[in-house]
């Protein structure tokens, strides 16, 4: 509690009327509202400085990740990575592999078990897909050598690595039935051989009257946005398959199973790594076949790059707007590679006052990696939002911030209607976007620095630019969770729960939530991973909504646990232990620790039970528990059973009104300099502003905002999986050729957290982990336009692409 990280607030700025008090800042929490139903202050949540509960394990290297798991007699499994983009296995000769000393089992795709045929495909559909054969051996290197000894006869097939090629009438069929979203292929609107979906997207097809919207407009513009395949996961993966039990890299439970060898830590997978379902099923099969524990290990090129983000594709926009800045119609024609999980129109339709929208959505199977949500569904939508307002503002010579505020709202309704909805449903009448914008503009000195496109050249000859974008702040409780709180006899509280600690510091945060809900000190709360020893498989949100869901579960369990502690405090017991157990029960005086008081007269704070009317009348929780539970023999009085409570959250159960619009907003500001000779774009300053509803752990919130910003640098300027069009091979599936940001790729970042308590989660929280990085791509594009007067919209915005946009390449 003594050491506050640099840049962290030393106190909560509760009643901050002046929004920005202290500039420059690295992190500030702004909360200007007191809801009468919410306590004036919290004991634990929102306060910085709590020692990270898993900090020592992670810093020392003792934290166990799936790849670090081991057991006696454990075997290692490796699968073949397809060398072709599209091919069929004709035959496999594994005799040499089976004869290799140390090889224990070889599983082949011609196995009679249909599950094996599903898991170990004989028809890989992209370069690197696990397929054909798996070798189980005493060591990873022997398994790898065994794979090399397998002689496989292939039939190479034509391939298509772009959606355009895939949808040609004579294109080869590349339908991937192993994809988790394969069901979309059943949609009757599919009209091409590889089309996964075509037509007007069902949820956001036509809203309003798109033609009327264009007729109403004073101006109409059209533009294209495209993005290359990308990935932002830690490219390391392994699953330990304890006999018949399956675990995963994302959460330690897979469906009905739970893992008996528990690991607390997960790689920063950000969702995409779980997309390849067969990999998770391979281990149990191998464990069953060998009768041994099997660690299935994927190579970096297999794992890290076969689960890519789902925003690879092209968007064509047609936008109508009035000269005052009111946008009247947005039409999107989009074409995705693989199975796009995003539309690009959803946020425009959902979180603005734009009344007329149409999304013509089409996606196509290609011979590319499995694609799925990778740190959120926000990205293409966010990108679409940002470029939309940037483009229209440029046409009208307006500040994009002002244009955004004009068009804020929900589902075609303006911001006044949004305020009314908030009022009608018990929420504060706060304009979340306005607050985000006010904070960000102040941090960036936006009004003084804003200039016309291409109008400001720096002394070093580079061009100066500002960029902005906004969106809703990820707000969902779409996942389920269970939490168990168990108060030990020494007054220590154990949380037993699954969690999704991918880096958001879920463990510390959950301990803080439990401390808040029970009145115990943070230092008295511990968390341990759940496993099947606990009777049944606990569930937790997989990451996206883990905070919102787990906050509800812990709050609920804590509120059930706390009265039990207070009832124990007033239960009548012998004050002194009766060690010999021989006293006449009639001679034993039974008394309460708080004579004459009911449990409702008591409260708990900082692990001390006290009389509300007389706080000096107190006893620690440890003393209460010791008094009632630890007398060795001859205990008299009311027996106190284990003090224990469950809490659960069913998706959407708490805090989510039907048809509730998303109320929380976020904004991202960047300041760049562009070298028009080299195409290099350097970020000079950035500010992420998130209405997070309520900050639980400031360090975690700050980390997600700033960490997301830095990941966003990769998304905006670096992440790009390159395919060889001639062979369909992926050319940069390693960390030498696929670029991630480093320590020297960022500088000067601010973060502001707005607290409106309007989120779905307990205490009004929303998740923040998926936000900042999702916003980051688009403001960079807007800033490049502001710097040069040229739009570069072919992401990632590498120097080469910027030069191409500038007409210099």
């Amino acid at each position, binding site marked *: 509690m003594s050491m506050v990280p640099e840049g962290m607030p030393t106190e909560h700025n509760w009643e901050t009327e002046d929004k920005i008090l202290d500039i420059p800042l690295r992190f500030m929490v702004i909360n200007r509202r007191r809801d009468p139903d919410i306590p004036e202050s919290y004991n634990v949540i929102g306060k910085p400085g709590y020692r990270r509960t898993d900090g020592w394990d992670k810093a020392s290297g003792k934290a166990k990740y799936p790849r*670090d798991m081991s057991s006696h007699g454990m075997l290692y499994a490796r699968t073949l990575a397809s060398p072709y983009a599209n091919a069929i296995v004709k035959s496999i000769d594994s005799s040499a592999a089976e004869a290799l000393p140390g090889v224990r089992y070889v599983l082949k795709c011609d196995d009679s078990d249909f599950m094996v045929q599903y898991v170990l495909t004989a028809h890989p559909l992209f370069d690197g897909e696990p397929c054909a054969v798996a070798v189980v051996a005493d060591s990873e290197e022997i398994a790898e050598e065994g794979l090399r000894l397998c002689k496989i006869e292939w039939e190479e097939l034509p391939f298509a690595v772009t959606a355009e090629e895939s949808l040609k009438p004579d294109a080869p069929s590349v339908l991937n039935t192993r994809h988790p979203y394969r069901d979309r292929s059943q949609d009757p609107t599919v009209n091409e051989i590889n089309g996964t979906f075509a037509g007007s997207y069902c949820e956001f097809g036509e809203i309003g009257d798109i033609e009327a919207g264009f007729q109403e407009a004073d101006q109409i513009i059209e533009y294209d946005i495209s993005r290359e395949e990308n990935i932002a996961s830690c490219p390391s993966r392994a699953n330990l398959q304890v006999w018949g039990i399956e675990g995963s890299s994302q959460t330690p439970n897979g469906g009905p199973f739970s893992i008996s060898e528990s690991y607390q830590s997960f790689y920063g997978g950000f969702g995409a790594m779980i997309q390849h379902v067969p990999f998770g099923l391979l281990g149990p099969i191998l464990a069953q076949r060998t009768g041994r524990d099997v660690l299935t290990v994927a190579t970096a090129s297999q794992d890290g790059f076969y689960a890519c983000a789902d925003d690879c594709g092209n968007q064509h926009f047609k936008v109508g707007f009035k000269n005052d800045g009111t946008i009247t119609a947005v039409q999107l024609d989009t074409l995705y590679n693989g199975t796009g999980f995003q539309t690009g129109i959803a946020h425009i339709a959902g979180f603005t006052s734009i009344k007329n929208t149409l999304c013509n959505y089409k996606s196509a199977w290609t011979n590319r990696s499995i694609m799925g949500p990778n740190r959120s569904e926000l990205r293409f939508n966010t990108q679409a939002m940002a470029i939309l307002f940037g483009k229209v503002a440029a046409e009208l010579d307006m500040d994009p911030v002002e244009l955004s505020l004009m068009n804020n709202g929900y589902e075609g309704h303006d911001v006044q209607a949004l305020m009314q909805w908030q009022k009608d449903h018990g929420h504060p009448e706060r304009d979340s976007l306005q607050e985000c914008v006010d904070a960000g503009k102040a941090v960036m000195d936006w009004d003084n620095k804003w200039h016309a496109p291409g109008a400001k050249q720096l002394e070093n000859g580079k061009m100066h630019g500002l960029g902005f974008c906004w969106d809703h702040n990820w707000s969902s409780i779409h996942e389920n969770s269970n939490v168990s709180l168990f108060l030990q006899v020494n007054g220590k509280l154990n949380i037993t729960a699954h969690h999704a600690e991918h880096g958001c510091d879920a463990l510390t945060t959950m301990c803080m939530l439990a401390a808040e809900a029970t009145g115990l000190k943070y230092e008295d709360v511990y968390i341990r991973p759940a496993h099947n020893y606990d009777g049944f498989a606990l569930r937790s949100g997989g990451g996206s909504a883990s905070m919102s869901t787990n906050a509800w579960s812990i709050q609920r369990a804590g509120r059930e646990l706390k009265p039990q502690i207070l009832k124990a405090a007033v239960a009548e017991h012998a004050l002194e232990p009766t060690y010999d157990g021989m006293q006449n029960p009639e001679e034993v005086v039974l008394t309460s620790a708080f004579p004459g008081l009911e449990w409702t007269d008591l409260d708990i704070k900082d692990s001390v039970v006290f009389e509300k009317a007389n706080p000096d009348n107190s006893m620690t929780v440890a003393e209460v528990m010791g008094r009632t539970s630890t007398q060795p023999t001859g205990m008299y009085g009311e027996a106190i059973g284990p003090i224990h409570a469950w809490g659960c959250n069913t998706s959407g159960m708490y805090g989510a009104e039907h048809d509730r619009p998303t109320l929380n907003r976020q904004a991202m500001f960047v300041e760049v300099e562009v070298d028009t000779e080299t195409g290099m774009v350097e970020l000079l300053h950035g500010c992420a502003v998130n209405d997070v509803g309520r900050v639980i752990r400031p360090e975690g919130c700050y980390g997600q905002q700033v960490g997301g910003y830095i990941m966003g640098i990769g998304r905006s300027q670096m992440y790009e999986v390159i395919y060889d069009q001639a062979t369909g091979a992926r050319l940069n599936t390693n960390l030498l050729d696929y670029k991630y940001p480093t320590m020297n790729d960022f500088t000067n970042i601010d973060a502001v957290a707005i607290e409106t308590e309007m989120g779905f989660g307990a205490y009004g929280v929303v998740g923040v982990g998926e936000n900042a990085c999702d916003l980051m791509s688009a403001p960079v594009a807007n800033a490049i336009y502001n710097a040069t007067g040229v739009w570069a919209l072919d992401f990632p915005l590498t120097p080469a692409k910027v030069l191409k946009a500038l007409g210099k390449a």
Partner: protein
Amino acid sequence: MTEKEKDNNPGGVSRREFLKDAGLLVGGTAIGSTVLLAACGDGETVTEKVTTTVTSTGATTTKTVEVGEVTKTETITQQKFVCPIDSMEFDSLAELQAHFEAEHGGEAPATALNVVKLTINGYEWEGQVEPQWNLKDFLHDRMGLIGVKSMCGGYGACGSCSVILDGKPVLSCMVLVIECNGAVIETSEGIAASQHPIIDAYIMNNAMQCGYCTPGFVVTAKALLDRNPNPTEADIREALEGNLCICPSYYAHVPAVLAAAETLGGA
């Protein structure tokens, strides 16, 4: 097993016989392997119907012993030295060298027998290694030092497997163990065990997210502080630039290292 049970199992094998069997099996799998002690104590026997499965991963051998329906898995207790020519096993390097000289005609220095002596986190280790073993896998898989992570899969591209080798930070996936004879190696576990302030500084500055890359950062940062007790922000960024964090947690490393430097300076 009780004395009564022993009497009822006259065909049981002695612990000595059990070990002999195990040694033969192990000797046939890999050099530098270790043998296992039976679960039973001295003088005890196990049932005659014993099936054994030996899992060899080079220097580490695990043996699963199935006695009837009971499965026992034994732990590593003893390092063996194996002749590279005839696979005979010896309990010490000196015995192996004597054997080599007598049977194969000529002196065999330790290095010729693929024997390396290492000091790992302050503890000495001597044993045979395979020439192709890299230091990362050796430390992680065979020494159990799981703080030696692997993100890039052996490309030398991520820094997660960083260790301090004779005072310098190295990518252990790029180093062969057999090159390390006589080396002093320090991993994140050793740094933590030595109570170095970099650990606490990383915790209190929240300089981690998912944490997989964190031990590599800690190692590199500690090596920086060893050679430069008063680093600037630029020094820290330059030193840590080779360590990748995907989440990322970069924003917190500079304050963490500065805090550790301050603590060291004040000590």
